[in-house]
């Protein structure tokens, strides 16, 4: 067992000290942060740069347009064609020209923004909203209705979902559940594939470099395989922990420095998307309402055992192949259950409690992904336990079979190996 530990250490430290590991570990949180904040940042960085001239022939819109941090309006007078020429020659220092013709209040049309470049969605929406608002008000006045009264009468309903549980009632939120479920499922999928192929590469490389015979004259192949699987698992966990800590730090720093500016951007976004920040706050609130310790435990469990389950298979696949083109064909049967699970996972959001979802969250091939995706919607305790139990059994069977394939496969060179050979290795060797 000492030697397994040595292999473990070697696999762990050579990888953790590797440059690409360090770069990847540091880069991913930054990328994630960027992706998360990109939409906000984009609106933020645009601010103050857009000037729009308004040529209002209807004369109805004086004072209707409010300047904001990224949009400045000024009214101009004159002939439309003149102004278009000026815009073409870039003489006037405006980014766009809004032309408002005389219009029939029943059928308002003919509003155009002339610009040298495509205008952004934010500008388009702002202008549209302003025009709509103003014309609506005009129509209300024509109809003799008090706009303020109408606003007073408007209502907005927020449907809450209370999930009944033994421990009491819990506020549910479909959107939050979907988000958490998909993110967790996808993350699991990514980790299985990424670290699974890392295992396969580690096995194939040792075989390709002809080191394996020296190693197996020192350590039984099964122990060697275990050392590798756990060594790389430790690398995965290290990376995961660094990511979690790093993202938390980044988030804190980010919110400290950026939140005042971001808040403004969020409000701008609200104006566009019509969603309210109250909803976002609600969503965050209901994430807190999840059973966090259980989720964390289940996540860690399915992450680790899902990884171990597949890594045994990947190790076996790596042992069978000795060049990369063959690797591809061997991984195809391995990727099918993973990709199928991804497809089912999308379905989980629509039908979290359908038979397909339940069965696939129990079967070891798909359970690491599907159970992860089901968790935010609530899973009966017995299903969770059964799924975990089956995954452990599956892991043991896989490791046993992979050990047999590994033992013979790593010393095979140049021979094309088919599934029949592999079956024989598993069942017909002592």
């Amino acid at each position: 067992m000492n030697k397994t530990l040595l292999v473990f250490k070697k696999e762990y430290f050579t990888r953790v000290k590797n440059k690409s590991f360090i770069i990847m570990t540091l880069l991913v949180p930054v990328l994630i942060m960027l992706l998360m904040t990109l939409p906000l940042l984009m609106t933020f960085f645009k601010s103050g740069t857009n000037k729009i001239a308004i040529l209002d022939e209807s004369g109805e819109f004086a004072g209707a347009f409010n300047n904001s941090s990224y949009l400045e309006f000024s009214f101009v007078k004159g002939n439309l064609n003149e102004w278009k020429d000026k815009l073409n020659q870039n003489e006037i220092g405006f980014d766009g020209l809004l032309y408002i013709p005389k219009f029939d209040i029943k059928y308002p049309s003919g509003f155009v923004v002339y610009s040298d470049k495509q205008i952004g969605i934010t500008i388009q929406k702002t202008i549209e909203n302003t025009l709509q608002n103003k014309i609506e008000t005009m129509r209300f006045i024509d109809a003799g209705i008090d706009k303020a009264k109408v606003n007073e009468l408007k209502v907005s309903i927020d449907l809450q979902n209370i999930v009944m549980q033994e421990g009491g009632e819990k506020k549910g939120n479909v959107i939050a559940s979907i988000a958490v479920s998909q993110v967790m499922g996808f993350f699991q999928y990514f980790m299985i594939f990424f670290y699974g192929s890392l295992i396969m590469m580690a096995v194939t490389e040792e075989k390709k470099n002809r080191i394996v015979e020296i190693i197996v004259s020192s350590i039984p192949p099964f122990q060697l395989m275990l050392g590798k699987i756990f060594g790389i698992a430790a690398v995965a966990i290290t990376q995961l922990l660094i990511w979690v800590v790093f993202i938390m730090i980044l988030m804190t720093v980010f919110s400290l420095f950026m939140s005042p500016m971001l808040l403004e951007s969020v409000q701008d976004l609200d104006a566009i998307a019509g969603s309210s920040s109250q909803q976002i706050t609600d969503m965050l609130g209901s994430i807190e309402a999840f059973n966090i310790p259980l989720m964390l435990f289940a996540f860690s469990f399915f992450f680790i055992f899902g990884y171990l389950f597949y890594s045994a298979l990947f190790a076996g696949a790596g042992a069978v192949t000795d060049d990369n083109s063959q690797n591809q064909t061997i991984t195809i049967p391995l990727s099918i259950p993973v990709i199928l699970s991804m497809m089912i996972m999308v379905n989980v959001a629509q039908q979290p409690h359908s038979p397909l979802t339940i069965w696939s969250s129990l079967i070891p091939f798909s359970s690491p992904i599907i159970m992860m995706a089901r968790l935010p919607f609530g899973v009966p305790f017995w299903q969770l336990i059964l799924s975990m139990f089956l995954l452990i059994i599956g892991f043991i069977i896989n490791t046993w079979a992979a050990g047999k394939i590994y033992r013979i496969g790593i010393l095979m060179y140049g021979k094309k190996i088919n599934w029949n050979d592999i079956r024989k290795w598993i069942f017909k060797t002592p």
Partner: protein
Amino acid sequence: MNNILELKKLHKEYENVIAVNSIDLDIPRGSIFGLLGPNGAGKTSMIRIITHITMLDSGSITFNFNEKGIKDYMNNIGYLPEERGLYPEMKIGEQLMFFAQMKGLSAKKAKENINHWLQKLDMEDWYNKKAQELSKGMQQLVQFVASIVHDPELLIFDEPFSGLDPINTERLKKEIVELAKRDKTIIFSTHQMSQVEEICDEIALIDKGVIILEGKLKDIKNRFKKDIFEIKYNGQFQSMNIDGLDIELVEDGCALVKNLKYYPNSQLLKMLSDHVEIYSFTEILPSLNEIFIEQVTRAKNMMEAKHE
């Protein structure tokens, strides 16, 4: 016990090939033992069974190590496989540390031994180099060190000189002979006969999973001598027709004499001296190469005869 390793009825079959066909073999302690045979004879299969890489179907392997109390007998074997390599990205020092510790050495002892060997082979500068920075021959020396760094009693070298230049071949040969003098046992597998003749004490010739010839190198050579002598002389043979001898002139003053009637050497010399003045008289022993080819061909013919 004087045999470090005893194989009894060692047997291994793959799907439809008998790789090792119930072989009995004793390896004497402190010897350099040549395991010879054509490609695919079963040498590597045998070695892999001894090194516990593949499992045997039946038979037994007994080790008699001096040093008792080593839990894992794999730790007392050093193995340089024919298919060998290093981790290309890893530093030489780190690799050797890994290999040495995998053979059960403590980190301290491993470091000590590595330094000793790197010094001995003038390779100290390589400690911090990555394997991929070294030439193939240099890598091979590192692999050699990796196989002996844990100071095992039994060493198994499979084609250790393949790909080495003559200088490094000599260096390695010297080290191997020296190891044998330090009471290490060396099993040396190859089909390079000249090297075997130079360094081996005993050999076993394997073909198709069976030992077809086995014993001390000297004895084997004697057994296969063809009673041909090379003589250098002064004078002229009056007649080439001497009873029971077949004389063939090589050049002026040199001839090959075949002793057809197995006269004792002294009588043979006397008979020749009657005709010419002899300077030198040497028996020509067959080269191992000739024996090897002859035996393998004979075995093949016998197999074919059996089939017909």
